[in-house]
């Protein structure tokens, strides 16, 4: 479950060697530094905590600075990645886009764009009501939400209108089309969650 933290820069297109058009998302990934190695012995599970985006010391609070002392870097964003082999990693190690190869598949996790309070058609993909046959005000209505005197209430988890978006979303098995090692850029085929400049977790997909 090797991975890296990145920032979504935007979408564009590139052309492959056959001249075909591929739509890509550009992610500025890393450089990241390992800030803590969690071991099975001490923490009960094995993972690495890595940090991204170097920041001035006075922009971070003191507990965070104390935690980051071992890594020797002042980093703004910390994320945890599960690992298999604890011995491979050491606090302070640098992680760059070089952990990925062309043709690798990755899972990208981010926070989706907030859509506000939305109805059931947008939020859950309901079909809405009929437009004709004497209907009025039913075009985007949810329809029945349950039975009558038995159970006399609405079941928990009923799909209803509400706040949509701004939640954790993972897109799986995206192809890596291009890697720019000099500028720390990953070109991933397709779209990833979130707005421009949002923080993303990019993890190697299980093959």
């Amino acid at each position, binding site marked *: 479950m090797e991975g890296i933290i990145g920032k979504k820069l935007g979408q564009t297109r590139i*052309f492959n060697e056959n001249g075909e058009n591929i739509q890509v998302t550009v992610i500025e990934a890393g450089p990241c530094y390992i800030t803590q190695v969690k071991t099975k012995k001490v923490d009960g599970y094995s993972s690495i905590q890595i940090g991204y985006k170097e920041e001035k010391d006075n922009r971070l609070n003191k507990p965070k600075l104390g935690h980051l002392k071992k890594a020797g870097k002042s980093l703004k964003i910390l994320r945890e990645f599960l690992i298999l082999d604890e011995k491979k990693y050491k606090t302070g190690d640098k992680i760059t886009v070089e952990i990925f190869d062309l043709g690798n598949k990755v899972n990208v996790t981010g926070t989706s764009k907030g859509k506000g309070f939305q109805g059931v058609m947008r939020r859950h993909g309901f079909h809405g009501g009929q437009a004709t046959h004497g209907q009025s005000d039913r075009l985007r209505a949810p329809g029945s939400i349950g039975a009558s005197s038995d159970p006399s209430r609405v079941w928990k988890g009923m799909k209803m209108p509400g706040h949509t978006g701004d939640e954790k979303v993972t897109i799986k098995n995206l192809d890596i089309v291009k890697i720019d090692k000099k500028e720390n850029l990953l070109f991933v085929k397709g779209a990833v969650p979130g707005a421009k400049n949002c923080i993303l977790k990019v993890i190697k997909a299980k093959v």
Partner: protein
Amino acid sequence: MDKVYNATKDYLRKDLPDFRAGDSLTVTIKITEGEKTRAQEFKGICIARKGSGLNSTFMVRKISHGIGVERIFPVHSPKIISIIKNSSGNVKRSKLYYIRKLKGKKATKVKELKQR
């Protein structure tokens, strides 16, 4: 977007001529059929240019056997072998969608720009 532009600017093509909506163009494109590749010409009026940078496209319309045909090409596609500008049109808008409604000779031609 600057970083995205810098990372993809190698894909931008500089060998193509400057053209705009109203110009009559001959676009030569590479076509792959199985293992063979051949060149195909598409001749018509450029009726729209859209987008910017690598994402820009242009639309070419022609009348083929009495039926209007439109194709959209990415400007920087490596599949485009050449774009030849046959003439410049004297048009007053950037998108010539009105041409779809015209019939007969008018549908295939726009007023030519006089050379000064």
